[in-house]
């Protein structure tokens, strides 16, 4: 366990020393704050738009960060052969994967905290003040990010950075659409279509659990059930993806 922690620390340090991260944070910060400039154009809705645009920016830049920094994470180690020096230490392959995940997720949390600080600042000043539902929304973004991080690590350990970036992004988008798709096809009453969509729905992460836009717009707190469901789903999905990654990794040759 301590080894996993050391590996996570090292991964964390690596991604913090990555220039890409600070660049993304910089632009993310600008986007979050830009909502203040755009909002006055929408008469009467100013508060809601500031809250909504800002949160979307936080979420999108978090995903961008995972896709850009995270998808090369494991692949790079194999490509640069640093994996030879690490997997010959007394470290099991599962610890390595888990360490990568935790380290990257640590970085993601730092990014979310930074962007959210901007968002909370802006909302506090111009978007109707600070409320509990804002913090709940941030927690939901963090849970969604955990799932996307696990997916990024999975692809990174079996495919090149470019492919994993594309796949991770696709999974994220379709994860958001999966629920709507299921609702639509349910009405069509076509058993084959149902079967396919049901299968996809099972495999893809159901990111609608973390969809909190309505609450943000209306300014209502989330239900305790929704929070708990989200948390449980996030944990289960991450564990499943990490187990899959460990299995894919266990038999691999590092040439």
């Amino acid at each position, binding site marked *: 366990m301590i080894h996993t922690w050391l590996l996570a620390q090292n991964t964390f*340090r690596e991604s913090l020393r990555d220039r890409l991260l600070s660049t993304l944070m910089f632009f993310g910060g600008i986007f979050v704050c830009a909502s203040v400039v755009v909002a006055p154009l929408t008469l009467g809705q100013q508060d809601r738009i500031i809250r909504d645009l800002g949160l979307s920016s936080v979420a999108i830049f978090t995903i961008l960060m995972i896709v850009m920094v995270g998808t090369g994470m494991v692949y790079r180690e194999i490509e640069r052969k640093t994996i030879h*020096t690490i997997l010959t230490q007394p470290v099991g392959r599962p610890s390595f994967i888990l360490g990568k995940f935790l380290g990257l997720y640590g970085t993601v949390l730092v990014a979310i905290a930074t962007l959210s600080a901007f968002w909370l600042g802006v909302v506090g000043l111009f978007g109707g003040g600070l409320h509990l539902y804002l913090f709940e929304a941030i927690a939901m973004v963090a849970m969604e990010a955990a799932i996307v991080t696990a997916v990024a690590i999975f692809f990174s350990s079996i495919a090149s950075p470019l492919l994993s970036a594309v796949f991770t992004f696709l999974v994220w988008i379709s994860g958001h659409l999966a629920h709507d798709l299921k609702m639509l096809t349910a009405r069509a009453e076509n058993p084959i279509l149902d079967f396919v969509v049901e299968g996809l729905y099972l495999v893809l992460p159901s990111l609608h659990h973390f969809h909190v836009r309505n609450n943000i717009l209306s300014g209502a707190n989330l239900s305790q059930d929704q929070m708990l469901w989200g948390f449980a789903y996030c944990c289960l999905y991450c564990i499943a993806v990490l187990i899959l990654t460990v299995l894919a990794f266990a038999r691999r040759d590092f040439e």
Partner: protein
Amino acid sequence: MAAPLIDVRGITKVFRSDLLKRPKEALRGVDLTVHEGEIFGFLGPNGAGKTTTIKILLGLIRPTSGSGTLLGQPFGSVEARRDLGFLPDSPNFYRYLTARELLRFFGRLHDLAATDLSRRIDEVLDRVGLADDARERQLRTYSRGMLQRVGIAAAILHRPRLVILDEPMNGLDPLGRHEFRDLILQLKSEGITVFLSSHVLADIESTADRVAILNEGKVVRIASLSEILATEERSYEIAFEVEAMALASFAQGLSSLKPGARGWIANAREMDEANRVVRTILESGGKLFAYHPRRLSLEDVFVQHVAASRETKAPAVATKTAPPAAVEVHERSAQASKRSESGVHS
């Protein structure tokens, strides 16, 4: 005798990297044992399969068939790695870490106590001679030889029972090589077993207790160094000058004949042969500059083993009647004998 630290039985490895390319048979049944306390030299030409063998020992890749143990554990066991130091053929460490940070990281993965670790890190960095002012710089600013030194430091940091070094002399300057040779002997005196893969035969010859020569994925010779050097025939070297006409008359029967700084240098395996050559030189009015017997060096043995298998392969395709010695070699290698068959039919 105690259980060997490395025990390899009939390991084969076939790489199937590409569906279109033919599978590459990198190892064809390697057997090895390395005992506690010895320095074991692992020799072989480029592409012989040394690195592949080492990666299998470490569990980085899986053998296609065969089995074995490392430090009494199956290959790839995490437990065995606690007592193992490893220097890869290209020391690629995390570039964004400094030498101290890297060793601290590795040291903690080996459960070394944080308080002793700083002292120990400086101790090993001193030992491999890494300049003081480099230790706080990120590794991406290091030269090849400096990385190599950090790699050696990392391999001995946790006082392992066994160190496996793949081409440790790479990138080291002459002084570095010299120091490194001493370091290996010191490790041995501390009771550490050293598995040393290298092209630098002089270094192996001056350090190793036992050697294995690997060629085309097979161990062609494994014995103690003294045994290898003693049992191999001696050779007789003759430096001389004769008329070109006379040269042809005795070139036959020599193991080698090549131009020297002045005249020619001949090598003969048998004393009778050497004497005959000397007699012919003198009788044909040539000049004899030198005549001395010499014991074969490890390099000669190496060249003999490796060259022998290459030479006997080539003519097999072209000629129908291979000489008996060559036939014998071929029968041991299925692939080669298949080739000679197809040569006969076409």
